[in-house]
């Protein structure tokens, strides 16, 4: 009996590596610590009522961002470990097996569990406030989306200590990711971690589309939408067309692995190339999904901090729509070297280049927003300005990669690695940081410390170039991606420099943690709700905004409505005519999303280990939750009475609305 248990445990838990034992210990300690703190301060009820069951978009947004930061840490540790291993040739810091797991989880964590939740966090916090809405269209579904993401992320991260991490790359090409070459459970964690959170993303896409289409303040036509909301609209549209492809692709891979189907196997008539096509039909739009909202953020910050209207609004909208459409017709540029023939390659090369046009136009419009402006440089604006050269150079190498015959020399090399990191960090991460610093006061009512923020900024930026510029060169010198050791002495210098850059970015992250920690205790309070002298409706609310956002929803007349309103007040003209306060209809908190996601987690975990006794109850749980919701949804609403709203408003605004 004991032997059986021992044998099971050695299979079940990942063993044999001091790094993993260290992680095990710290996970256990952290969990005990959290449980202890919550119990000691009697915070379980608070956690349950205020966070776990909440349907408030602002709180859900904060949870997304918190989770994204944790995942940024995890993905960042992976990155630093990889760079450490590659600093010198034939280093034995990581075994090849471990190295392969780490580059796989680095990619998966950064895209699915860092970029996506950070993006959804910003969507959640800002979109309803920007369009003058009380919440998103489906608050319950919104909470479900978050908890599905969370369940997926937890399931995926669990693979680090239980069962073993996936190790077939972030897109898990079969046959390498198939049962034949990868019989362990790591790939199962990959499939279900992403699948569960992907369903959440899909639901979020629907939610924000409906929110933007149906819940805008009166007078806010589509061509008066703030540009960030437009970017959310473009990204959400892309999500609802792209994510179903991912869902099916992962399902098919699961059927191959679990039931021995033959979609992507070598034998039985399977076709691995079909997987590569399918995954990139989702994967290419995905990179635009994460970068478009960053474009939206820049459009907001650049106008605010240049104190000038956004230049070329119509062009900006058109460019974004074009980008999201064309992003569906470029997928094969990820495998020009598959031998698809000259005509196919030419088509995808040209469609890829075309995307550079609207992107370039956006850059010019941002530049000319600053032209004849009055630019100030707080941290959100610093990230915005740093974005431009980073993205322009990354875009240029992107165009170079799009030239199919030249790509034969770049593909799978560090040149490619440098390129996509430059656009993903320089575009997406810089954008989300800009957004985070910009809207932080709106979320929490205080500003983040600018001094530490600038240190973080410089470390990030310098580290970024030091890390990735050498990678372009070492790629041109024939170094391919995903190698755990190398022997070519010509590559040593470049790799050392690159590793130094990675560490600089690691230090930058520590500065950000310090910045947040310090600012919680010592900060400048945002008493006006409009700390940056902003232009759009979110700045008309107190910081943080009350749960109902707007006591009375304003009538919108122009694109920069709040700016215009302030101008009207400055000129002594008639300000907003706000109607009387009325009772506000609000959704009630619900435990179902968290419970249902827990059931998904159980289902996923069961399927990872082929334990049907666990998976089937999980599935039944999911259905019970659906029924419970269907039967209770009509009771899940309440009204906030007028007196309470007046009291809250008086407290938040010192009496004046």
């Amino acid at each position: 009996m004991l032997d059986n248990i021992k044998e099971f445990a050695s299979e079940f838990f990942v063993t044999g590596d001091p790094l993993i034992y260290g992680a095990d210990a710290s996970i256990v300690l952290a969990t005990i610590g959290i449980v202890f703190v919550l119990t000691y301060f009697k915070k379980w009820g608070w956690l349950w009522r205020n966070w776990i069951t909440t349907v408030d978009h602002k709180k859900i947004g904060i949870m997304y961002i918190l989770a994204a930061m944790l995942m940024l840490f995890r993905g960042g540790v992976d990155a630093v470990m990889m760079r450490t291993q590659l600093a010198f040739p034939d280093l034995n810091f990581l075994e090849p097996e471990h190295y392969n797991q780490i580059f796989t989880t680095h990619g998966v964590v950064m895209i699915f569990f860092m970029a996506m939740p950070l993006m959804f966090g910003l969507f959640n916090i800002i979109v309803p406030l920007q369009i003058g809405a009380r919440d998103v269209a489906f608050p319950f579904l919104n909470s479900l989306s978050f908890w599905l993401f969370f369940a997926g992320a937890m399931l995926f991260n669990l693979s680090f200590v239980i069962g073993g991490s996936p190790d077939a790359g972030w897109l898990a090409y079969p046959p390498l990711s198939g049962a034949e070459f990868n019989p362990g459970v790591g790939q199962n964690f990959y499939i279900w971690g992403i699948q569960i959170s992907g369903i959440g993303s899909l639901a979020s896409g629907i939610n924000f589309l409906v929110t933007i289409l149906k819940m805008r303040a009166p007078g806010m036509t589509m061509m008066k939408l703030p540009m960030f909301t437009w970017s959310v609209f473009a990204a959400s549209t892309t999500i609802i067309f792209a994510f179903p492809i991912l869902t099916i692709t992962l399902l098919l891979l699961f059927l191959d692995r679990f039931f021995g189907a033959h979609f992507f196997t070598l034998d039985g008539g399977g076709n691995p190339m079909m997987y590569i096509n399918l995954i990139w039909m989702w994967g290419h739009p995905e990179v635009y999904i994460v970068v478009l909202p960053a474009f939206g953020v820049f459009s907001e910050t650049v106008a605010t901090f240049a104190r000038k209207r956004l230049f070329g609004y119509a062009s900006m909208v058109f460019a974004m729509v074009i980008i999201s459409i064309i992003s569906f017709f470029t997928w094969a540029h990820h495998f020009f070297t598959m031998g698809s023939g000259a005509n196919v390659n030419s088509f995808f090369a040209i469609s890829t280049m075309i995307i550079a046009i609207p992107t370039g136009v956006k850059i010019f419009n941002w530049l000319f927003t600053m032209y004849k402006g009055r630019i100030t440089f707080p941290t959100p604006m610093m990230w915005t300005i740093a974005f431009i050269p980073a993205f322009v150079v990354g875009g240029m190498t992107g165009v170079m990669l799009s030239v199919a015959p030249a790509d034969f020399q770049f593909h799978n090399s560090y040149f490619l690695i440098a390129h996509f990191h430059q656009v993903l960090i320089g575009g997406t991460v810089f954008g989300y940081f800009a957004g985070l610093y910009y809207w932080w006061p709106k979320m929490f009512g205080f500003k983040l410390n600018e001094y530490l923020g600038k240190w973080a900024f410089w470390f990030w930026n310098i580290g970024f170039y030091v890390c990735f510029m050498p990678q372009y060169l070492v790629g041109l010198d024939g170094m391919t991606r995903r190698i755990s050791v190398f022997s070519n002495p010509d590559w040593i210098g470049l790799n050392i420099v690159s590793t130094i850059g990675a560490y600089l970015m690691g230090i930058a992250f520590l500065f950000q943690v310090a910045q947040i920690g310090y600012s919680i205790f010592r900060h400048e309070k945002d008493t006006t709700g409009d700390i940056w002298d902003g232009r759009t409706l979110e700045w008309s609310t107190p910081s943080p905004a009350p749960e109902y956002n707007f006591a009375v929803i304003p009538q919108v007349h122009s694109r920069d409505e709040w700016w215009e309103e302030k101008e009207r007040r400055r000129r002594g003209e008639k300000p907003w005519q706000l109607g009387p306060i009325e009772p506000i209809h609000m959704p009630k908190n619900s435990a179902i999303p968290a419970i249902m996601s827990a059931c998904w987690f159980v289902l996923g975990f069961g399927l990872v280990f082929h334990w049907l006794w666990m998976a089937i109850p999980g599935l039944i749980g999911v259905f019970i939750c659906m029924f419970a919701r269907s039967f209770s949804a009509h009771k899940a609403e309440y009204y906030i009475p007028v007196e309470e709203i007046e009291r809250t408003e008086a407290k938040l605004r010192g009496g004046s609305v």
Partner: protein
Amino acid sequence: MAQSPAHGTDHHDHHAAGHHDPQDLKLLGFWMFLVTDVIMFGTLFATFMVLRGNTDGSITGAEVLEMNGIIISTFLLLTSSFTSGVAVLAMNQNKVKQMIIWLVITGLLGAAFLGLEVTEFIHLVHEGATLQTSAYWSAFFTLVGTHGVHVAVGLFWMIAIIIQIVRRGLNSDTRGKVTVFSLYWHFLDAVWIFLLSIVYLMEVM
């Protein structure tokens, strides 16, 4: 601009009370869901088309697919789509009992359809065509099976809706549910037409 500022206040009250018509939102949301479902089925159809010829030297569809059962299935599902439409008509005339009867008939037809599908699958497995046989059969069972799972989920969903209507009667909430359900059911019907043509007719012809 939709409203002049003078009218704005009226409109305003409307919003202040949070009167975004929830049924309106749900209907649009459901259409969006259908878009995602179309893409999912589209991906499965594309997969099937790519793998159609990949029978790996084993049993082919033309050898074992039997059209008689499929024609009856088609008839059942098309009829059920019609009866679900009739149920919505009855609902619009506030004839609750009639509506429930039509929904039940829809459900029975759907269940019969599922029964036939299960019989067909058992027959195929008997003939030696399983998910593991070849890429063609993997794609076949997954595509047809996904549609079947949609029908099954629809049946459970409909039962839940009928119970709610019996309990709470017709109101804007339950009406919305019936409308959305009927939309879903018609959608499954449309998917089946494609299945019939691409998976069955093209194979057998």
